[in-house]
């Protein structure tokens, strides 16, 4: 009996671990869905073009779904580039990113240069939005310029 009694905490520990493990597995359903590109639109050479996070038609939007805390890290491009190698420098600052609820209400504004944590829940989608500033020069040539913003979503272990 003594030894059986001694086993009980071990079994209890083991059983207690299974639900947590199951929880950890259910968290492996975090998804990233790009909704809208960051579009600076038509820019005039020599002028700065800024996209605010309140600019619904031009800001970048990414939908995040899943459960539990996630850390969002951005790999931000330093410039928009043309096919011929011309560059338009990009600037990002505090307030150029935010987490929004699906209805558009703001959860928090962010510094896109930092790692930002948000709590995901199964019953809601969170929108990550990003703005920024493109700085053209008078020597910037006409044409199309593009870049890619990469999101790293890390769900920390419990």
């Amino acid at each position, binding site marked *: 009996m003594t*030894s059986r009694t001694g*086993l009980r905490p*071990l*079994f209890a*520990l*083991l059983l207690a*671990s*299974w639900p*947590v*493990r199951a929880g*950890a597995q259910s*968290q*492996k359903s*975090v*998804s*990233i*869905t*790009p909704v809208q*590109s*960051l*579009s*600076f*639109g*038509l*820019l*005039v*050479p*020599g002028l700065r*073009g800024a996209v605010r996070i309140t600019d619904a038609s031009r800001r*970048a939007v*990414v939908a995040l779904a899943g459960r539990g805390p996630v850390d969002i890290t951005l790999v931000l*491009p330093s410039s*928009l580039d043309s096919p011929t190698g011309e560059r*338009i420098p*990009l600037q990002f600052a505090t307030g150029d990113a935010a987490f929004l609820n699906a209805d558009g209400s703001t959860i928090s504004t962010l510094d896109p240069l930092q790692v930002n944590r948000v709590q995901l829940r199964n019953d809601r989608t969170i929108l990550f939005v*990003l703005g*920024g500033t*493109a700085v*053209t020069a*008078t*020597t*910037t*040539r*006409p*044409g*199309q*310029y*593009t*870049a*890619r*913003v*990469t*999101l*790293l*979503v*890390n*769900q*920390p*272990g*419990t």
Partner: protein
Amino acid sequence: MNRTLRLVAALGMLALPTLAQAQSITGSIAATATIQSVFSFGAPTALSFGNVTPGTTASGSGYIPMQRNVGVIYSLPDGATTGQLTGPGPAILPTYTCGVGTTSTAFTTQWANCTSTAALQTVVGASGLVNEFVIFNGSLSAAQTNTVPGLYSGTIHILATPN
């Protein structure tokens, strides 16, 4: 019992690494911009010969600013009648020199003539925003001004085509 203990411990150890596991995923979105072409004439300054005494010579100068960040082809769509003046007497065609300058007062590139509907100057591309002036200098001979008094006027049409 020892065997059971070992099994429990093994199961527990299997579970624990899973608990510490973190998940990372990545996604990307595009960022885009379009730099627009700049290609426009500004407000012209008229070429005026002023009040001319009949039988004397007269001259005048005028220009129109041009701003662009692309290449250009300049031509004169009116050809041989470019800048012809009409008034109460016979039409007068002044003698013109014309071209483009970085200032409004001097030619950087003077055109071969001021009567051609063909390309007078072709510039391929631009390294940035260019501000220049299309300049016309006109002169009237004494014989031309010896005519019927009155106001004589005309329009110089300049065609700039993006290149």
